[in-house]
């Protein structure tokens, strides 16, 4: 009987400690949260457009600068044509391939550097150094090696993104809580299993942060590469921008810049979403949010 009372007490205490449970399902809650996330962005866009319009109204460099109206009309016009979608496809294909290669190279380099101390001493600071290197500086170098083709662009993209990815992974491995390592070792996790079941999962938040930063660098490097490297028969976003520059086409260039910005933000949102999901799962997020 004593044990019955004991288990009842434990179950009761558990219930008390977990509290009354989350707030009841509220159908309006999701809509309200969506709105709360939405309106600051709308406000920001409205502010940018207003300032832009003010610059146009001030008449500064009125012979080239056009207002949001004509630019968006130009963008809308371009969206009706296949060509815009084709150049987006070309660029996105390069981006995906380059980023995938950077992911593989960065991850392998990250694991090796994190695992082998002499390699860390030798290469660790070089990786950080590479991160600070402006990607445009690699373009002439890449053209010398590969010529003006896709390989040159991929090279620049990989050099831009891989260091961030490697660094993210190294940071994650370094910041694996020592207590968890001790727990893992007492549980008999050794060698590969230790990495597979403990160190890599523990590194995931930092790894994803590195991947997110890597994407930003990759996208930047890609645009730099495409602006300079002219591949015949493969018209890309960067080349479009470069053509608009030669034609002094303000509206066209602005439209392309908006496209670049939107793609960059959309992909970044995916990473942010992944990051938030991971943190929520691990209880690293304030649940009041």
């Amino acid at each position, binding site marked *: 009987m004593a044990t019955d009372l004991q288990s009842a007490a434990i179950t009761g205490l558990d219930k008390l400690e977990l509290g009354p449970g989350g707030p009841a399902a509220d159908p309006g809650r999701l809509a309200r949260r969506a709105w709360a996330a939405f309106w600051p962005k709308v406000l920001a866009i409205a502010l940018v457009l207003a300032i832009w319009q003010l610059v146009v109204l001030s008449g500064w460099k009125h012979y080239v600068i056009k207002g949001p109206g004509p630019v968006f009309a130009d963008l809308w016009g371009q969206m009706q044509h296949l060509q815009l979608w084709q150049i987006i496809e070309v660029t996105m294909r390069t981006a995906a391939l380059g980023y995938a290669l950077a992911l593989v190279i960065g991850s392998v380099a990250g694991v090796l550097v994190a695992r082998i101390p002499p390699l860390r001493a030798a290469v660790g600071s070089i990786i950080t150094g590479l991160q600070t290197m402006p990607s445009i500086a690699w373009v002439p170098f890449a053209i010398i090696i590969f010529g003006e083709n896709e390989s040159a662009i991929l090279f620049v993209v990989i050099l831009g993104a891989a260091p961030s990815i490697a660094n993210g992974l190294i940071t994650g491995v370094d910041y694996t809580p020592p207590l968890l390592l001790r*727990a893992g070792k007492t549980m008999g996790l050794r060698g590969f299993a230790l990495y597979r079941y403990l160190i890599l*999962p523990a590194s995931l938040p930092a790894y994803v942060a590195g991947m997110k930063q890597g994407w930003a660098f990759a996208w930047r490097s890609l645009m730099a590469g495409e602006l300079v490297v002219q591949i015949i028969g493969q018209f890309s976003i960067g080349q479009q921008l470069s053509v608009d520059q030669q034609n002094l086409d303000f509206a066209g260039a602005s439209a392309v810049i908006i496209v670049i910005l939107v793609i960059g933000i959309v992909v970044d949102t995916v990473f942010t979403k992944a990051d938030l999901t991971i943190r929520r799962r691990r209880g690293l997020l304030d649940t009041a949010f």
Partner: protein
Amino acid sequence: MSILNGRLTPQDRSPGAAAFPNLTVVPDQAGVPGQAGVPGQAGASDSVAQQDRAAVRLTKVSKVYGHGRGALLALDEVSLSVAPGEFVCLIGASGCGKSTLLSLVAGLDSPTSGQIDTSGQRVTLMFQEPALFPWLTAARNVELALRAPGVSKAARRARALELLEVVHLGGFGGKRPHELSGGMRQRVAMARALAQDADVLLMDEPFGALDAMTRDLLHDELERICAERTLSVLFVTHNVREAARLGDRVIVLSSRPGRVIEEYAVPRNEPRRIDSFDVAELASTITDRLRLEMSRHGD
């Protein structure tokens, strides 16, 4: 009333032992009826039975950190043993090397000199923090410890849920650690330790971070779980009452360096509670001894 001559063996502790509610297991005082129930000191030499079959035996174990002048002697020729099924509490002020000792027994570190013999038994360690993997659910945390070769995923899953049931967390297998309270997490950690199917359970202040009410309940839980299986426990704590409440034997360590200075056998008066008279009395004896030891460092 029946007084057994000699040490309580694990077999005695299982249900049969309940037939002797006032069982006293102090070897020095066995056979002295008037002294039953009074905490006494076990002699420096262990009983013969214990010499033969100890679950854990430390022989003159020393541990030095660092080299040369900066070297720090953490443990100084510590000898102690835990009989199969015995619950031994280690207590001492800060700097007595309690956690070092557990790390050595767990094999996470090796002693500078001396021998540690766990006679090939499986040893597991529980910490003050639950040290659960935050990316896994409670059930998966337990499952990970079951990762033995040849066991199917379904069997592991079933066994994990079974173990969670043992610690009264049957319905919480799908929860992640951060969704549980501190006491619940520590119980998941206990289920994980049990999953390793260890013979020796080392506990490093496992309830130190919990509130008193939860701690009392977990004492009962731990006692029940240990009674259900032949677990040998080496339990480190700062809490004298906790040691007196849980231990079959309480070993007091000195500080800087850690040495065994005193050993108390605990009379097993069932049911024991943190507020029982016996526990309180033994606790105050131990506290006095500890204070004496601490005062040595005050000069």
